């Protein structure tokens, strides 16, 4: 298996990262995702393919740069370069809540058991777990806590208004 979770199920990863596009004569087939620069440089060429397309953001990118492209994308890949770096939590919420992205938001990098709960609340639904993590054991992490106080991508209202 690919150590990959999609929508709370262990799944196989059908997406391939792709870089190095030149002149449109060697367009890759299948489901690929490209770095943001590649997308910005070769958007029209990439859109002539038949396969699904995704874009990978650095965690310093403002997701607003792809907000008008989101209906053409099936995947946005976010990076967690190390566990302590939580910038992509904000990117995920903006993509889901502000820009209404409906496709897969995928966490890559230091994707560890104890972050999955928070990631899913921010709208991340694809998880490329770090190699040493066990995907099937990690499924429990989504349900370790069942009560949530604040609105996020999975809740519109705070707990105090839901309780009444």
């Amino acid at each position, binding site marked *: 298996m690919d150590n990959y979770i999609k929508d709370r199920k262990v799944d196989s990863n059908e997406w391939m990262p792709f870089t190095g596009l030149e002149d449109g004569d060697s367009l890759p087939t299948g489901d690929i995702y490209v770095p943001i620069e590649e997308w910005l440089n070769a958007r029209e060429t990439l859109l002539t393919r038949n396969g699904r397309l995704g874009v990978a953001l650095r965690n310093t990118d*403002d997701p607003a740069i792809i907000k008008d492209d989101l209906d053409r994308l099936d995947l946005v890949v976010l990076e967690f370069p190390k*566990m*302590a*770096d*939580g*910038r992509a*939590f*904000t990117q995920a*919420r903006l993509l889901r809540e*502000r820009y209404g992205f409906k496709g897969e938001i995928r966490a890559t990098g230091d994707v*560890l058991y*104890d*972050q999955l*709960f*928070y*990631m899913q*609340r*921010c709208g991340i639904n694809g998880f490329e777990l770090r190699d040493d993590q066990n995907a099937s054991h990690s499924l429990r992490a989504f349900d*370790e*806590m*069942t*009560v*949530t*106080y*604040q*609105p*996020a991508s999975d*809740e*519109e*209202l*705070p*707990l*105090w*208004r839901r*309780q*009444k």
Partner: protein
Amino acid sequence: MYQYSDQDQQLLLERVAQFRGQVARRLKGELSEEEFKHQRLRNGLYLQLHAYMLRVAIPYGLLSSDQMRTLAHIARKYDKGYGHFSTRQNIQYNWPKLEDVPDILDDLAKVEMHAIQTSGNCIRNTTSDPLASVARDELEDPRPYCELIRQWSTFHPEFNFLPRKFKIAVSGATQDRAAVAVHDIGLRLIKNETSGENGFEVYVGGGLGRTPMIGKVIRSFLPKEDMLTYLEAILRVYNTLGRRDNIYKARIKILVHETGEDKFRELVEAEWEKIKAGGLYLKDEDFAWVKGFFKDPDYELLPDNDTEFENLLLSNTDFARWVDKNIELHKQSGYRIVYLSLKTAHQPPGDVTADQMDAIADLADKYSLSQIRTTHRQNLVLSDVKLQDLPALWEELKALDLATPNYNHVTDIISCPGLDYCALATARSIPISQAITERFDNYDFINDLGDVSINISGCINACGHHHVANIGILGVNKKGTEVYQLTLGGSAREDAAIGKIIGPAFEADEIVDAVEKVLSVYLENREDPEETFLMTYRRLGQAFFKERLYG
């Protein structure tokens, strides 16, 4: 006080179970120490010099007597029989065993307590005025707002891996007893003179540590309905742009400083515009619900005088001193606010034994509506004591060594645990605090000095808030020797200021003399006894004091 719903309680139990699992994975070696660190820190568990240290949250400093008894039980069963109240109104245990921590959390959960987010790079326990709802200078009780912030910030999925720790304080009174200007965000309740509505003055980017800064007013008036959306906007800007390349430049104060106050304000306002109508916009029904937990008790209608009290005041000097120093007026006639001093020559500042905790819980039941508050200056408060009960309470507090008449006076010292406990410390702070206390343990001298603060930190991280003391002491290690720098002129109150280093550092056996010299310069040069140390210092200036200290 706030009462947990079934869901609050369920979340707490789920969190304990989760942490129990994390400890088990660590003990089995499935989690590396580095990865476990991120998890234990989000649950208040530090690895210190000799042992783990567990920091338990006391939301906005409010405890029931039953909660205090549980704190005593934990001190007795899992620690060495005492706990340490911190400057952020929490309590710390210095000697728990890792494998016991899940059981400690279970015991805490039974009384609606926890260690959630008391450390780690997340939003910490929200602190407030220990005199909330009883102070005479209060505009509005800040605690309902604190509770909303507590719920909003607890396991906030977006802000659990911030660049650095994040501290919020809320004050609702004219006098600032919550040090709002030295917090990452400080909220001060104020009245809008045009609309007559209460809202917040919003300070951002205060903080101590290596780069002490006073918070900037990012918004002069924020309607209270917008409190949480605005906090969310600030946190989002910080999570996105806060520096992560250097731990010492990662606090929001650096972001505000480097971005510039105006630009930072623009960024926050632009983000806020997009979310201000969202699910965190607060409605009247939300305030009505949360304020319902903080209603005034049914105070008895009592006269504001009492014969027995007044007779004792005249006949017993010790009682009169205690009343003068440790009692404040209450908004309700016939009641008083009582400070329990945790500053004696016999215990480190802020330390309380398990037996004292149990006794304090009993006193709260007997005299003060079963509640206790913790303060920024590491003392405790019984907030609703009848004037007529003060003589009896005083006798009981004396027997417990909790009646030292020194609140906000020279021996009411804030001190971090220092090198006696802390892995970060570079010098000892508790022995210095005790040496100062012993030197000045004379009521007439303390009384004559009046309102003055001494704070001691055992390293540059400044947990003892030395920058905002009138007289701050910072212990540093210089070529293997512990030496102490003196800073003068700081304040953590509404006139907040960062103190300045006065000159070369002093050795451990010189620092108490240096403090005494500074105090004598004040006494000799004040215009009259009404002029406090800080006023005199501000009038005469640093050079004046420096010349006399080193000259």
